[in-house]
Structures are given as structure tokens and as C-alpha cells.
């Protein structure tokens, strides 16, 4: 059969390699031939390639690979790790073997799209979840089990609840939310919580309602934080604006030159301005001595904290008939 008639691309490629580099194949894989259990180069390659599915990389590469594995310890290696493997092979083997292994590396680096595969975010969060649960964080007595067992539980139950829900107070993303419910306290301590246990104690409906409740709590707290920060910024902005307006008022009411004797009215007005309490306040505001309180509806001196002017008294926003 001619090369072009090979249905199997491996055979097609191998037949070409056999023609050109038949002699070197033995050299290339001579040291692994005992492991593979075949003296044939073609067979060795095919076996190595087929075994990739089990170990995540071809066996011949595994044997020479000295670098770290992927953090997950499974799944395809990153292109960088493939590259480093190739470079390591290059140090130990001849150039000819590099050329002959190109197709193998290409095939091994091919990624198959699995529609059922979890997303990268999910994998990352799940990984951090496992890491957190194995880093000696305090766990409630109910879930003090061997780590392996806990991991096994999580692996089994991750479909029922997402690792995203394991609240991480250190991350700062969620506010420090604590509820009096025991289940909630377990969640706050990052303890692994298996869905089957949950289901048996509360039922699926209670899980859903619990999630809804917790989400609402978190959203409310986030909203509250945002509102507080926005109002603070607004008040700061108000203070700046207030000072700006005060400067404008002082500037527009201050005479450039002393009024001439014939300008009696103007001089009267300016003398009134000079003794005006309002203008005095505006001068203080423009100098930054007095400003608006951020939280209360009062003027005050930032340096001393002393209230300037009238103290504010809260008044109920009610009508007579409502009382």
C-alpha cells in the first residue's frame, strides 16, 4: 500500500519516517524499548502515543521529563511544559531523534474539545477550594475526616454546589457576613460540606432556600457598602464644592481698591460686608477652617471638631394624622 493510501495518519507518517529514518528509530527509542516492550520504532511510538491518554503525556517524554507537572496533576500539559520537555529531550538525544519526535509532540499537544469538561474558572476555584480545605483550616467536629476522604466527598458533591460558594473571608470579595445559623457558620469556616449530608438533613428545597437567603444577604451587604462609599465620596465632593462657592462669594464681594470718598454707598456696603457674619463664615469656609460635616447636617471646624453655627436636630418626617 502506498503512503497516501494509509487511512491511519499515524501509519502514514510512520511509513514516511520508516523510509527515511528507519535506522535511527532503534537508536531513538532504544533506551525505552524495554519499557514499551517492543523493539519496533513504529510500535514504540504508537504505544507511547496511545499511553498518553493514561498519563497525560507520552511515556517516552514522561521518562525524560524532569520539570514539575501541572498543578492539577492531570490533564494536558501546558505548551510551555511541552516545550521544556522537548528541550530536555534535545539535551539527551540526537538531532535526528528530535526531528522524528516532532509529530509525536504535535499529536500529544493536540487538545480535544470536550463539551462536558468543566470551565477553567470552575477548575481553578475547585482547586483553591481543595487547597483551602487541606491547609489546616479549622473544621467543625462534624467534618473532621481524613483530608483524602474530604476531597473525595467534595469530588463527589461538586456538581450539587459550586466551589464559588465557599466564602473566603481572606479574599475580601465577600464582606464579613456571619449568620447565627450553624450551617452558615460551617460555610464561613471553609469547611467542606457534602451535599448528600445536606440533602438528608434539610432536603433540596431547603438548600435552595438557604442559597437564596445567603445570596440575598450578601447582595444586601454589598449594596450597603457601595451606598456608604458613594455617599462618602459625595460628601467630600460637597465639601470641595462648598469651599469653591465660598471662595467665589468672597472674591466677588471683596473690593479691589479702597472706595473713593465720593462712593459713599459702596463704602457703606463694603463696611457692611466687612462686619457681615455671613461673609465671615464664607471667609472661614474658603480658608478651609470651616466645612460641612460628612455625616450630619452641620458646619464644623475640622481641626477641633467644634460645631459652627446651629446644631442640627433630627425631625420626624411625619404628618399630624400619622402620629
Amino acid at each position: 500500500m502506498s503512503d497516501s493510501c494509509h487511512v491511519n495518519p499515524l501509519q502514514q507518517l510512520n511509513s514516511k519516517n520508516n523510509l527515511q529514518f528507519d535506522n535511527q528509530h532503534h537508536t531513538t527509542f532504544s533506551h525505552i524499548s524495554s519499557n514499551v516492550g517492543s523493539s519496533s520504532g513504529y510500535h514504540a511510538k504508537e504505544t507511547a502515543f496511545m499511553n498518553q491518554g493514561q498519563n497525560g503525556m507520552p511515556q517516552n517524554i514522561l521518562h525524560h521529563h524532569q520539570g514539575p507537572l501541572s498543578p492539577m496533576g492531570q490533564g494536558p500539559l501546558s505548551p510551555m511544559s511541552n516545550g521544556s520537555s522537548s528541550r530536555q529531550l534535545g539535551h539527551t538525544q540526537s538531532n535526528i531523534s528530535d526531528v522524528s519526535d516532532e509529530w509525536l509532540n504535535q499529536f500529544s499537544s493536540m487538545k480535544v474539545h470536550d463539551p462536558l469538561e468543566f470551565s477553567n474558572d470552575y477548575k481553578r476555584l475547585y482547586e483553591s477550594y481543595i487547597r483551602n480545605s487541606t491547609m489546616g483550616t479549622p473544621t467543625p467536629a462534624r467534618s473532621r475526616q481524613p483530608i483524602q476522604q474530604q476531597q473525595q466527598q467534595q469530588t463527589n458533591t461538586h456538581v450539587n454546589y459550586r466551589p464559588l460558594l465557599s466564602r473566603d473571608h481572606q479574599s475580601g470579595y465577600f464582606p464579613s457576613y456571619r449568620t447565627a445559623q450553624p450551617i452558615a457558620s460551617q460555610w464561613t469556616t471553609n469547611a467542606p460540606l457534602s451535599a448528600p449530608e445536606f440533602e438528608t438533613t434539610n432536603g433540596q428545597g431547603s438548600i435552595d432556600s438557604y442559597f437564596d437567603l445567603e445570596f440575598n444577604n450578601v447582595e444586601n451587604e454589598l449594596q450597603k457598602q457601595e451606598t456608604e462609599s458613594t455617599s462618602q465620596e459625595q460628601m467630600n465632593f460637597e465639601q470641595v464644592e462648598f469651599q469653591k462657592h465660598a471662595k467665589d462669594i468672597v472674591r466677588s464681594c471683596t473690593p479691589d481698591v479702597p472706595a473713593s470718598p465720593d462712593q459713599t454707598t459702596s463704602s457703606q456696603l463694603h463696611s457692611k460686608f466687612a462686619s457681615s457674619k455671613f461673609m465671615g463664615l464664607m471667609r472661614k469656609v474658603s480658608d478651609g477652617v470651616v466645612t460641612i460635616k460628612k455625616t450630619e447636617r452641620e458646619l464644623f471646624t475640622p481641626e477641633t471638631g467644634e460645631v459652627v453655627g446651629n446644631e442640627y436636630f433630627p425631625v420626624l418626617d411625619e404628618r399630624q394624622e400619622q402620629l
Partner: protein
Amino acid sequence: MLRYHTQGFSGYGLQYSPYFDNKIALATGSNFGLIGNGKLFLLDIERNGQIRESNSFLTQDCLFDIAWNELQANQVLTAQGDGSLRLFDITLKQYPIAIFKEHEREVLSCDWNLVSKNKFVSSSWDGDVKIWSPTRSQGSLLTLKPRHADTPITGSRVDTIEARSKQIPLSNQREHNLDTNQNKSCVYQAQFSPHDDNIIISSSGSSMVSLFDLRVNSQSSNGSVPQFDFMAHGGLEALCCDFNKYRPHIIATGGVDSRVKIWDLRMLRSGPMKVHGPYGSQLVCVNEIVGGHELAVRQVKWSPHSSHHLLSTSYDMTACVWNDLSFNGKKVTGKTNMTDAINHGLIKRMDKHTEFVFGADWSLWGQPGIVATTSWDGNTFVWNGLK
């Protein structure tokens, strides 16, 4: 001259009661109305000349204007800084009997309809004028939208962007170099005509004075637009307006240009006094008082007893009573107050206030010419404006 001092509260608006000859309602704000509580004072003028506080109501926010209920002798309406209007019964304590809240910013004026008496009008910093019924606190009856100087004239080809990019030409005076665009939408005052319960005028920060006729259906997407408007104070803010009580077509306005202007509504649409400009009709008034005040004019009030007497208050800390020289009480004279070279028709200037003078009102009772003024200094003076 009678005096009452509201300790810690600056006066913004006052009005004589239409039912009691000795009662004055006074709207005030703490910290010069900048921030803090407001307080409604009910003042009684005693026979011995003393002014006594008969009742008061502390409010959440500063009060900027006041209007007595023309139907109920014991009810008074206040315009509050939190965007609400509140109706108080002066025989009760502490709380209002009705709250009308629809404005989004400070309510700067309120006025009760003197003809139909079951409506009142309010104007606000949010740019709206609203008509209310005292029996309906759920919401306003109607919202009116005065046109601002930067919006194109309806039906004209004035391009909006072009109009906005143009600054209204002002003088080179330093006090005019401030940011004049910030309060353009603010409607400082709105008032019902005392002659026709369907006519309303308003003055706004865009210098526009707008006339609304409630009988005309002029609904736009977000409110009724004015039937007619004009630029009253050359691009500077028009702070106040008032109908003459005897001449239905005569109004007076005051503005940041320190001028009091008197307009004849019959002469606005046509005639040689009309000047076309990029922002609409810029008209020439029938009379104006130039140089009477050194700073912006905050309020103008026509006398309830005379067709040609006018009271004005100003940021120059004075209040003045003027004689409108264009009318002698019987006919138009053809003169203006500028023809009086000496005092420009001034009858009396009251300069006892030590801060900006805001509110003023003519007494409806007793000898004509008694006026009351209130100021940011906390003083309320009652004095004779014609002597």
C-alpha cells in the same frame, strides 16, 4: 420700626396673614439657609408694638418661602429645602398636616391662588413649576416646564448644540465672571395672577420670565411649556417677579443685574420694543430702576393699596420702596424712573439690616404703606415704607 429677632435662624420669606391683621408667618433656615434645620415662626404684633412668637415649627430642612392658605385662616404653607411643601395648622404643634413632595430639589417659592383659592403653585431648583391642590397630597395637578435659555425655541431653527455652545454675552465686571451656567434651570419664583386664576408667571436662572395659561393645552412629553417667555435680565438670573395688583398686564421682575424692571405683557409680542436674538425675544421693558440697588434684587412686591408703589429687597442689605414713575395712578405718564435723576423714584430705603435682605411683604391691614422685611441677620422689621 418694630423688630423681632429669630436667634440662630436666617429669614427667607414672610407674609402677612390675609385673615388676622397682626399675624406674620416667617420662613427661616439655620446657618444662613445653607445647611441644617428650618423653622416656621408665627409672629403676633401686640398692641404695645412688641412682636411676639405665638407658635413655631422646627423642620428637617431650611424653609425658603411661605404662603397663607386663602381658604383656611389657620393654615400656612412652606417651601422646604428637601423638595417638599408642607401645610401647617398654626393651632397645632410640631408636625404639618399635609406634605406635598414631588420636586427633586429645593423648593424656592410657593404662592396661593387668590382667585380660585383651591390651588397653589410652587417652583423649584429642579426646573419645574407645579400646581397643587391642598386636598390632594398624593401628587401635583400639573407640571409646568419653563424654557431655559439653552433650549431651542419651539418651531424655530435654532440648533440646540450651537445654542448651548454659545455663552450669553455678559459684562467684564468681576462679579459677572462667575460660573453663570450652574443655576440656569433653577426657577426662583412662580406666581399666580391676582386677576386671573389661570395665569402664572415664573422667573428662572436662565434669565427667562415665562408666562403660562393653564387653559391652553400645551403639553409636551414631560410637562406644559409656556405660552410665552422672554429674557428679562440680559442673560443674568431673574430672581423674582410679581403681578401688579391693579394693572393686570403689568409685572415687575428683579435680577442679578441689580435692576428692577417693569413689563407690560401687552407689549411683549409685537411692537418696536421687540428685539430678536439667538435666545428668543429680548424685549424692552416699559420702565426700569437702574442703580437703585448695588447688588442683585431678591424680591419685588407691588403694593396691595397702590398701583404704582413697589417694594424691593436686595443682596446689598437694603429694602426699598419705589414709585413707578411710568404710571401716576390714573394713566401712563411716558416717563421712566431714569428720568428722576436724583433718586430714581425712591420713596424710602431701609438699611437697618446687616445681612442680605430676602423676604418682604406689604401689610394688608391698617394704614397703607406698612411693610415687613426679613433678612439673613435674623431680624424681621416692620416699618412704614411711605414715610
